[in-house]
């Protein structure tokens, strides 16, 4: 029987509730102490210090008792864990083949204490709620448990880093290491928050058009777009640096695991099994030639963030997307492509025409009703009309290119690919066993022209959406459905 690292007693997870509780306990204790020491000459500061000290002693004493009663043991096939909470004893026996992932984290506080948090998470593929065992261990113990449950026994890069030795049990293929560059990290927010840039340039354009009137309105008006831009970018850049800095993804072609390490202040190390990777999605921007990729892994410990899935977010160029796709078990093999019916282009064109018509009508109405209230330069309305028409034409052209080059449904024996969008191309890749149910749908117009829609109901995966193939040839949808039926239930 082993126990957590003794210093883990000092590790508290702070959140609002804990802080509020601490203050309430402190207040109550302070009142009790003032009543006890009423007759003695003790100052308020002294009482407060005594209350804090007492509370800390009680808390640490309680946590020390919990630490003493909590233990774990493991062999090659089983992990046993006994945890004592306030009133009950929880015993977990976990078979190694049910382990979905082992995560090694080190937050800033744990870093100071030289402790690693090892989270062992079960597979959720059976639809049950996943369960995670959290251990707080020294580096040697953490590495030992990670390597014990690593089914194919590859060399752990963590062990190799720690003691400079390599196991001779398996000869792993050469490690492929991917790291974010500073340039990529500066590009993250452009992919994540393109609206902020559009807003910024729209304001700059407005100030330019306004000319002297805009400047005469005072520097406050001119500074607003700059402030919006700065604040709009602060959060994405902080996110990008905190989560993307020091990111290292390591994988080997002949082995099942992917090792991911990231974090600027708190280091987070994850080991994922390729089998548990269910979805790979990326959004590729043709303008800046970069992609934002998300990997959906079933059964990881990051429940608060993404439910039963965890999305690993990576920012890469097109070549690295293919490399990652291959690393995640989606080998870039031959695909059978299906293109949408031309009615989908007609629907897009109708949608754009309606949008442009609404915008032009709104501008015309604004000219009639607002011109008395707000004096604007005369050229502003025709200019707005021209911008709307140009914007409409731009949408029409991109819709055509999307229909011609980017929009498709593709499949092979292993997985399905759905792509949509031209300038920002969204590509979703997922395995057949992700599909829970699927629906073919066709309305009266679709029946007349021989098209149909297909809706795929995937695992309820939080950050990942369900998928659909709309306005495809009915016979193509039939072929796709037959293939899916065959792959899911073996039905011919």
């Amino acid at each position, binding site marked *: 029987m082993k126990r957590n690292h003794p210093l883990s007693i000092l590790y508290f997870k702070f959140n609002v509730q804990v802080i509020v509780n601490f203050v309430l306990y402190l207040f109550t204790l302070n009142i009790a102490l003032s009543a006890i020491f009423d007759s003695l000459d003790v100052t308020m500061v002294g009482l407060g210090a005594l209350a804090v000290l007492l509370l800390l002693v009680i808390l640490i004493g309680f946590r020390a008792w919990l630490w003493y009663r909590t233990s774990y043991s493991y062999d090659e096939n089983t992990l046993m864990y006994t945890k004592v909470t306030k009133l009950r004893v929880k015993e977990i026996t976990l078979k190694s083949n049910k382990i979905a992932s082992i995560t090694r984290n080190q937050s800033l506080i744990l870093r100071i204490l030289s402790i690693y948090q090892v989270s062992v998470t079960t597979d959720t593929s*059976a*639809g049950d709620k996943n369960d995670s065992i959290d251990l707080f261990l020294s580096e040697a113990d953490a590495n030992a448990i990670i390597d014990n449950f690593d089914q194919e026994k590859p060399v752990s890069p963590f062990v190799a880093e720690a003691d400079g030795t390599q196991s001779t049990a398996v000869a792993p293929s050469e490690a492929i290491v991917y790291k974010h560059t500073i340039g990529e990290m500066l590009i993250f927010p452009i992919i994540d928050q393109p609206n902020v840039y559009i807003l910024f340039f729209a304001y700059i354009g407005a100030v330019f058009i306004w000319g002297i009137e805009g400047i005469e309105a005072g520097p406050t008006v001119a500074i607003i777009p700059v402030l919006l831009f700065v604040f709009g970018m602060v959060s994405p850049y902080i996110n990008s640096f905190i989560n993307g800095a020091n990111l290292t993804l390591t994988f080997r072609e002949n082995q099942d695991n992917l090792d991911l390490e990231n974090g600027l202040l708190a280091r987070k190390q994850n080991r994922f099994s390729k089998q548990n990777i269910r979805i790979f999605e990326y959004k590729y921007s043709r303008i800046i030639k970069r992609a934002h990729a998300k990997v959906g892994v079933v059964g990881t410990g990051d429940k608060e963030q993404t439910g039963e899935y965890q999305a690993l977010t990576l920012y890469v160029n097109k070549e690295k997307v293919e490399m990652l796709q291959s690393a995640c078990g989606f080998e870039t093999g031959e695909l059978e492509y299906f293109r949408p019916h031309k009615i989908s282009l007609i629907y897009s064109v109708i949608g754009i025409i309606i949008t442009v018509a609404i915008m032009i009508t709104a501008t015309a109405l604004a000219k009639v009703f607002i011109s008395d209230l707000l004096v604007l330069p005369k050229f502003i309305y025709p200019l707005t009309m021209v911008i709307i028409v140009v914007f409409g034409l731009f949408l029409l052209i991109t819709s055509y290119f999307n229909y011609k080059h980017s929009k498709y449904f593709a499949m092979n024996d292993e997985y399905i690919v759905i792509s949509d969008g031209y300038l920002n191309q969204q590509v979703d890749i997922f395995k057949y066993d992700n*599909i*829970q*149910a*699927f*629906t*073919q*749908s*066709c*309305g*009266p117009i679709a*029946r007349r022209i021989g098209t149909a829609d297909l809706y795929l*109901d*995937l*695992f*309820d995966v939080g950050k990942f959406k*369900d998928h659909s193939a709309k306005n495809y040839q009915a016979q193509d949808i039939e072929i796709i*459905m037959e293939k899916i*039926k065959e792959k*899911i*239930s*073996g*039905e011919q």
Partner: protein
Amino acid sequence: MKKRYFFLKLGIGLLVNIIITTVALLTALNFKLFSSQITMLIIVINILITILSTFIKYAQFKKYVPNLYASYITLNEGVLFQKYKYIPTVNVQSIKHKRGIVQRMCKLNTLILSTSGEDVKLTYLLNEQVAEFIAIKIEQRGDEYEA
């Protein structure tokens, strides 16, 4: 049986609708919220909508065909927008079985099948269909555990 259940359910719905509408309109008339002509107009419109929705519901009922097979479940529904849903039996994680008073009278059932995606509701299922499906599902699970 299915037709009996459908018409019973529809009849009860219509009766409730007529009672509620009549009471509401009479109350409104009493408080002089509407004139008697407007009240009559609302009653006529309500009856027309009810008749139309009855026809649509009947058409939908005739198109509604759930099938339970060993390896998959299919569901055809919709009149204007026709839908064909396919659920592999292996993906069914839990089965909820519901029967109301009218359903018990007609020996019919509602099954709610939970998958890891969204839930699927199947109505108008005969008792023997449900029993057979649950037996198949239990057998499948048994095979999975043995494997």
